[in-house]
């Protein structure tokens, strides 16, 4: 029995079988190592790209930040890069308007679709609707730009008209207030009786009231203040579209994203929670609203943040249907034309062979891009945190 001894200590290697013998021919090991390093190189490409993105953004926007006269970047009443006026508020406010309206479209529709698909739909209904939503996710943004300009703007925005929008806006604002009020009431009820609860209640009620009043004033102002004053009931037909039409287009593009991320969150809620709720006698509605949704809330928040980040970065729809070409005047009304950060960058880069204009025009492109990059990076990291929280819990 001593002639076949398996040993892993070299001093006792008397047998015919050692670890060295098991390792196989050296050539084979070298080939394996080579293959491994090729794959490692491929995966390092992603780090290289990240570094290159940051380097290119920082380099050019550093030139902009150190050389620009900062007074032309704030309070200039318009983004006119070819004339050396880089008014950031114009782009930021337009981006804010587009993102908010887009999320008003994509948030409820995406979340509703996710709740139906995850909680109510039969297997058959699911397998019918889910691929359709995935196709909607694949529609190129230029198609939505065309649709926003030639359909949403004339057939929806302008047809509904000024009075219609006044009412619709007011209803949406009041509905959101109601949701927030209900949510605070629940929050306060949990702490009922304590001094803290009364304080929270006071502060929140006051903030909500002030915010609503401000939003309502802004809304009435922007609806009443836009369009041709001579035609009292209709917006003047804008051949180039307006922010609202573009924003609805962006919202439609964002629906599938919000839907699929929220559906993942709802699906990760353990089935036991639903069964337990039903076992206690809760109806389907109660189970869905009071058990499943609260359990998935981190994932749903993540879905909304990812949606916001996507809407903020969407370029072509606003560029085509946003109602502004090379430059934009400051506006806080969704019924006017303007440029978002992304559309501003695209419009700077079109029409000419190279980006030309006043000295820092090329660098301004990278400055806006850097601001956009930081904003979306922050949102994506926040969304990642929320997604991880769901994963850790279940």
């Amino acid at each position, binding site marked *: 029995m001593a002639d076949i001894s398996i040993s892993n200590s070299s001093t006792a290697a008397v047998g015919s079988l050692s670890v060295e013998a098991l390792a196989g021919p050296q050539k084979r090991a070298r080939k394996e190592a080579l293959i491994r390093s090729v794959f490692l190189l491929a995966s390092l490409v992603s780090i290289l790209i990240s570094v290159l993105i940051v380097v290119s953004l920082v380099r*050019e926007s550093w030139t902009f930040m150190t050389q620009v006269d900062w007074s032309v970047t704030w309070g200039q009443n318009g983004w006119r890069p070819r004339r050396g006026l880089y008014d950031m508020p114009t782009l930021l406010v337009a981006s804010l308007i587009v993102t908010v309206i887009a999320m008003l479209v994509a948030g409820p529709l995406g979340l509703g679709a996710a709740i139906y698909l995850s909680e109510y739909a039969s297997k058959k209904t699911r397998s019918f609707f889910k691929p359709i939503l995935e196709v909607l996710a694949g529609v190129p943004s230029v198609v*939505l730009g065309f649709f926003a300009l030639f359909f949403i703007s004339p057939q929806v925005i302008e047809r509904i008209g000024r009075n219609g929008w006044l009412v619709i806006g007011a209803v949406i604002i009041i509905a959101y207030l109601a949701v927030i009020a209900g949510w605070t009431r629940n929050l306060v009820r949990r702490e009922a009786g304590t001094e803290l609860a009364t304080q929270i209640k006071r502060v929140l009620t006051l903030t909500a009231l002030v915010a609503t009043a401000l939003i309502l004033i802004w809304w009435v102002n922007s609806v009443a203040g836009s369009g041709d004053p001579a035609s009292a009931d209709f917006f003047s037909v804008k051949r180039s579209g307006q922010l609202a039409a573009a924003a609805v287009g962006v919202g439609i593009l964002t629906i*599938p994203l919000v839907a699929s991320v929220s559906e993942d969150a709802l699906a990760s809620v353990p089935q036991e929670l639903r069964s337990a709720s039903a076992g206690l006698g809760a109806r389907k509605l109660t189970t869905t609203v009071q058990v499943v949704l609260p359990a998935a809330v981190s994932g749903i928040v993540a879905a909304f943040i990812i949606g916001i980040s996507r809407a903020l970065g969407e*370029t072509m729809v606003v560029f085509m249907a946003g109602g502004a070409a090379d430059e934009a005047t400051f506006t806080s009304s969704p019924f006017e034309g303007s440029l978002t950060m992304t559309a501003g960058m695209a419009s700077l*880069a079109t029409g000419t062979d190279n980006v030309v204009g006043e000295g820092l025009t090329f660098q301004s492109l990278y400055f806006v891009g850097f601001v956009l990059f930081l904003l979306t*990076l922050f949102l994506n990291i926040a969304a990642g945190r929320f997604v991880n929280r769901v994963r850790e819990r279940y």
Partner: protein
Amino acid sequence: MGLSTIGDNQVARRVEDEIFRSGRDLRGTGFRTLMFGALAVSVFILAVLIVQVVVDGWPTLTGRFGDFWSGTLRSRSSDEGLGISQGLKGSIWIAAFVALFSFPIGVSAAIYLEEYAPRNWLTNTIDIAIRNLAGVPSVVYGLLGLFLFVKTLNGGQSALFAGGLTLAILVLPIIVITSAEAIRAVPSSLKQGAYGVGATQWDVIRTQVLPFAAPGILTGTLLSLSRAVGEAAPLILVGAITGRLAARDSSLIDQLGERFTAMPIVIVGWVRNSGADEGFGPAAGAAIVVLLALVIAMNSVAVLLRGYFEKKRG
């Protein structure tokens, strides 16, 4: 077991209602209807969108079918030679760039991350980089392409290779993420079996992992191809042509260094011209029908393929 009279039936139904509350749970039914409404509206929008585009573009597409395919970018919409041939050529080139660069690099990176990578800081960094790259807005990739390929490598001149490489970089994280998911789904028993009969790691990957993950990898690649073909913003940034592009007959290699356009860029150019020259509107619609047909075909094949294999493997 009693006689079933009409009265008994009514009692039975009432008891049933008490238990299932089907007829009385108004709020529940309302909520369910509302949620279904959200789904239905989303799908309805897609239907309106497709119908609207087809209605707008159909006359141009069928009216001058042959000319439209072989035509080029022109400055007036009434021009007989107006068409999409240059856009199609550019888009095919871009798809080729994605297939040539993103596919091999992306799949290799996914193999490394799933099969080789040890748990250390480097793997973590790669992972974070890929996740964050997937969320970077497409215009920012355009800025990278403009800086790296146009300004640094090509002396400020826009060229086809710059657009192709920019989009190849754009879809790389998508390919890595979808391929990694497909590779993760390979059952470890398959791999253990192969190791057991003496296969090396590369043998296992080549003969077991890749064949099993192939459908998933293919699905991800198709989705990213359709994304690249439909993307416009980065191409505008690296200087794709929206106006007029001189028709030239040059060799394949020479084309790489020439100015270019692509299907989405053609559409953007025509839509923006339609303010001054209304005829460009329908032309853009017709180009969209072509692009949409291409993209939806690729996406549907990808989704169906995945569904087929999911069902087959249970």
